[in-house]
């Protein structure tokens, strides 16, 4: 198992239905954060990678659905409502909350490389964590593209479409939050997956 193999396997799984629940909240966070999408995606990455490591290394913290729903709801508030003037910080925190929620909901594809990593992860310490994050970097490569695209766009260009971005991004996160609270998240994701494969 090499780092490159893990990265490639992660990248391959980015285009499989099992990654929808990780990538969708990330994309929604980037949209909802508008011109602060970079901060939001950075927070999202940290949140999702941390939660994934805690869960997959068997360190507990299997969050109950109501808690996940609450965390996603907090992310909506932080991303859409400028509570303080430091918008980049608030957006980063909003992304972090969305990342924690996504990391708690995500059930990854398990190929041969990732399967081998998972066997050792509970006992492998920092090297295992790094390998997991390499795998996740592959899975989240599409978010990097989105982040880069939004980064290169001049900030002024966001102004006309800001309401649309807020509605789509915030709306998607709010729907995920409500679906999780109602115990319907599997149905929502299943429907998305069904659409994506047909």
């Amino acid at each position, binding site marked *: 198992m090499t780092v490159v193999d893990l990265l490639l396997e992660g990248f391959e799984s980015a285009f499989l*239905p099992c990654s929808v629940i990780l990538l969708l909240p990330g994309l929604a966070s980037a949209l909802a954060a508008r011109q602060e999408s970079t901060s939001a995606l950075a927070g999202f990455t940290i949140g999702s990678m941390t939660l994934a490591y805690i869960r997959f290394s068997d360190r507990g913290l299997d969050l109950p659905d109501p808690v996940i729903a609450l965390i996603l709801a907090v992310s909506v508030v932080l991303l859409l409502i400028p509570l303080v003037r430091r918008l980049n910080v608030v957006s980063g925190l909003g992304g972090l909350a969305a990342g924690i929620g996504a990391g708690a909901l995500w059930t990854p594809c398990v190929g041969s490389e990732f399967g081998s990593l998972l066997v050792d992860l509970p006992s492998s310490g920092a090297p295992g964590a790094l390998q997991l994050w390499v795998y996740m970097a592959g899975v989240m490569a599409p978010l990097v593209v989105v982040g880069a695209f939004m980064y290169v766009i001049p900030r002024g260009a966001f102004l006309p479409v800001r309401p649309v971005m807020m509605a789509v991004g915030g709306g998607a996160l709010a729907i995920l939050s409500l679906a999780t609270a109602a115990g319907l998240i599997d149905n929502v994701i299943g429907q998305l997956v069904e659409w994506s494969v047909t």
Partner: protein
Amino acid sequence: MNRGQYIAIFIGLLAAFGLFATATRGSDEGETVAAPAAADNDRTDTADDTAGDAGADATSSDTTAAPAPVLADAPGVYGMQGELVDLDGWLQAPADTELSDFDGQVHVVQFWTFGCINCKRTLDNMAALYERHQDDEFEIIGVHAPEFSFEEDVDSIASAAVDLNVSWPIALDTRKTNFRAWQPGRRFWPRTFVVDQLGQIRFDRIGEGAYERLNETVAYLIENPPTELTPEAQWMSR
């Protein structure tokens, strides 16, 4: 160069990386059978598994042509098998089938769902294993635990079983009761266990891979049936 050009180059590199990834994954599937992995008593993992995987990805005729290599040493014990309860029924087996019907046989218990790509990729090896040991005291039990709602439909499962060449008994674990009970901590699709004649789990694999180890474990247990529970299993079953 301005910031935009840097970003454009980055995206171009990422796209090239993606093409490389796709090409690399595709070429793996055509490799020929690799030498069997070295046997040891450790849990299956790492580079040896990857070498074995290439072989297992070969066609069924390749894998059934030669007898399975057998482990040199007895595989370890990971615990006692659980039960299969609260099922919605069985496919390709009588409706009143129970897990205890397979006591005294080596059996593979695999948690899978038909929409899962990683589960599907294990099935060629499973089919070859099933065919290889069709005259032995051996069975495979596929426990179908749907990940998404569209995978709950029984007709769809039955149709997928035909398409995927799954000819062994399928337990319908629609509510995922057993999926959770057999994986109390971390839960993944697929999860594959090999259970010996006494109900001891002798192989446990998350995800794809470790096919050589799986095949060798089954062959070892068929040739060397345990006569009594290991001390670890006795302790675990108390």
